[in-house]
């Protein structure tokens, strides 16, 4: 008798907990950067503790597959409820109505958006509506291999180093001293053999690398960039300041021989692999690469800001945000998760891991503290790079436009065409996409 009562109670418990489980809402959360997984898992665990009615499932999709997964997911009406957004892809999604407008929710819940950098909020606004808050931000600087500098007897680059598109300036001279052929001669040696380079001064300068690469130099030469304004319909790459920089970029490969042609790093090894293997003395790197840098064990390294150009020093300034799928059946729960992730507590948890600069200015010192006593010593330079930033090109047909730009730039970097012809080729092809 007693046994059967115990059984009954147990059964009742199972039934009750079963129904409680059924009421729990499961949210799917998709992201692309494995380096941030640990930090966000910690934040989401805390969120689930505070919101026992919500279960969050994290889905990692690597960058190369991420956007294909999102678009096919949309076609199948089966998308994560909350996912990371990127400025380069945002415009295509928002213009097609895939993202939830957060403006009414922001107003309803009196969200204080003044804690975020305004320029980050601007990324996510489209035709008067707001589709994201701000998750983080990033700027560009150079990672350099200290051991290779020491071996070549070259002093480490200083924060006030310079470049110019005519003869390259201090920047190119440094790179020349760090580019070595198989006999150990550097690129300034009259007997230097550019066909047998074993170590390059600079890596990762392909056409695809706009954010950390050529676009920054266009700005530093006084150029506007790619489009006249965000969502603009005019290509401005034909400005002389831009053409000059693109030619300079090509010269790095074909005249100074201090960087490999893009194919050598696109096919085969990623620039990052070649940098960590000691084949490149320097690579431009966004601040999001800092966590990846922690796994470098074979040499010591540091960061240095962009070299100063004729028009000063500029960096791309970009940031991510969480977006909500417009068709999610769990709009309210997704909004609660988004509010948490962009809020102060979560950004503090993530900042303590030191993986990305928090979108809340007040938390930047917390992020920098995470680097106390470890490489890179000069991490704060990323914060300085945020002083002057260029305008990110945005367009509803951006994927198609950028596909053309990167192909043509790669042809130029391989040394087949000059910068002027390249820009003319780009103009010819993108015309119909810009209207």
């Amino acid at each position, binding site marked *: 008798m007693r046994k059967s009562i115990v059984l009954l109670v147990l059964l009742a418990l199972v039934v009750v907990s079963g129904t409680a489980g059924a009421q729990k809402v499961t949210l799917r959360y998709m992201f692309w950067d494995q380096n941030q997984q640990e930090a966000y898992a910690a934040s989401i665990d805390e969120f689930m503790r505070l919101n026992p009615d919500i279960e969050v499932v994290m889905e990692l999709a690597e960058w190369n597959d991420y956007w294909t997964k999102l678009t*096919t997911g949309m076609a199948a009406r089966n998308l994560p409820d909350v996912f990371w957004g990127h400025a380069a892809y945002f415009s295509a999604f928002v213009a097609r109505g895939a993202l939830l407008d957060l403006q009414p929710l922001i107003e309803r819940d009196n969200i204080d958006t003044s804690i975020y950098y305004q320029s980050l909020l601007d990324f996510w606004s489209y035709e008067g509506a707001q589709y994201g808050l701000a998750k983080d931000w990033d700027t560009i600087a150079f990672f350099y291999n200290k051991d290779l500098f020491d071996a070549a007897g070259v002093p480490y680059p200083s924060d006030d180093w310079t470049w110019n598109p005519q003869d390259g300036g201090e920047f190119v001279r440094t790179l020349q001293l760090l580019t070595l052929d198989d006999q150990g001669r550097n690129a300034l040696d009259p007997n230097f053999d550019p066909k047998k380079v074993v170590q390059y001064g600079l890596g990762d300068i392909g056409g695809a690398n706009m954010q950390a690469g050529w676009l920054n130099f266009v700005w530093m030469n006084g150029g506007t960039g790619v489009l006249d304004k965000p969502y603009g319909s005019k290509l401005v790459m034909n400005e002389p300041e831009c053409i000059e920089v693109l030619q300079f970029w090509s010269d790095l490969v074909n005249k100074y021989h201090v960087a490999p042609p893009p194919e050598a790093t696109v096919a*085969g090894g990623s620039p990052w692999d070649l940098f960590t293997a000691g084949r490149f003395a320097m690579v431009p790197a966004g601040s999001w690469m800092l966590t990846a840098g922690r796994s470098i064990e074979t040499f010591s390294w540091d960061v240095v800001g962009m070299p100063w150009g004729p028009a000063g020093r500029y960096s791309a300034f970009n940031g991510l945000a969480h977006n909500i799928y417009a068709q999610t059946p769990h709009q309210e729960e997704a909004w609660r998760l988004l509010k948490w992730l962009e809020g102060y507590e979560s950004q503090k948890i993530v900042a303590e891991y030191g993986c990305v600069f928090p979108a809340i200015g007040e938390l930047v010192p917390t992020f920098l503290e995470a680097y106390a006593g470890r490489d890179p010593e000069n991490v704060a330079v990323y914060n300085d790079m945020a002083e002057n930033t260029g305008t990110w090109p945005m367009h509803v047909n951006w*994927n198609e436009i950028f596909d053309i730009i990167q192909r043509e730039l790669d042809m130029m970097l391989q040394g087949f065409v000059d910068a002027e012809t390249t820009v003319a080729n780009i103009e010819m092809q993108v015309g119909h996409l810009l209207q």
Partner: protein
Amino acid sequence: MARMSQKRKREAIAGYLFITPNLFGFLVFQLIPIAVAIVLGFTEWDLINEPIWVGFSNYRNLLKDPVFQLSVRKTLYFVLVNVPVQSALALLIAILLNRSIRFKNLIRTLFIVPWVSMAVAVGLTWTWIYNSQFGLLNEILVKVGLDKIPWLAHPDWAMISVIVVNIWQFLGFHIIIFLAGLQMIPREVEEAAIVDGASTLTRFFRITLPLISPVLFYDLIVNVIGTFQIFDLPYAMTGGGPGQATRVYNLYLYQKGFQFLRMGEASAMAVMLFIIIGITTAFFFRVVGRRVNYDLT
């Protein structure tokens, strides 16, 4: 109509039951998607919003699109180089392997391995080998005193470099087919010819070739259809570059659909490829098919 006997009825049911799994797979994974693609080809669909009916405008736009025309030319070039070279090589190797030589099984296996490997993995491995700066091939060229070759870096080289990998990768498949054909040739015919004093070359052209012509023909059709649909290798090795050098048809189709969110145009491209392949196959059946000898006696 005469009624089927009880036995025949049961046999018919059993027959249908046997093909049910296959038929189901064909319907779900082939016929229905094909029908959907045909319909979508007449719409504008960005994968996010509902498709909009646009009639033939996708087809008109494509025919005017210079990149589309270019991708057709690139694909034709791929087929025209790949198919003859691959078939000739495979036939030659199959004939050699059909004789009693040492390590026959080992050699056969070596040819099969690339075929059963994943194309993307094969492609990525070859990008390492081909890498113009740090790759194995160029390292060897420099060691023997030659200049580096921009295998995948130069538009003039990239296509041929990809085709070489494709030929190598699927050689094993064609060798197997040819080997099967060669083993169908009755021993007596060959022996009789030897007794009659026919030379090796005569025996090849008068006996071997006519007797395996059904297999050759089958292989030709399969190869042409398969090569028109080439995707994985250029996708993994060059992404269609440098510039437009290796932007083959299916690569452009994929980009249209999934990168540029123009699924309607991508579907229209799929339908057009279907038509192109259909016409080519029909052409081969008319011109080559009638010369095939199905009489093995």
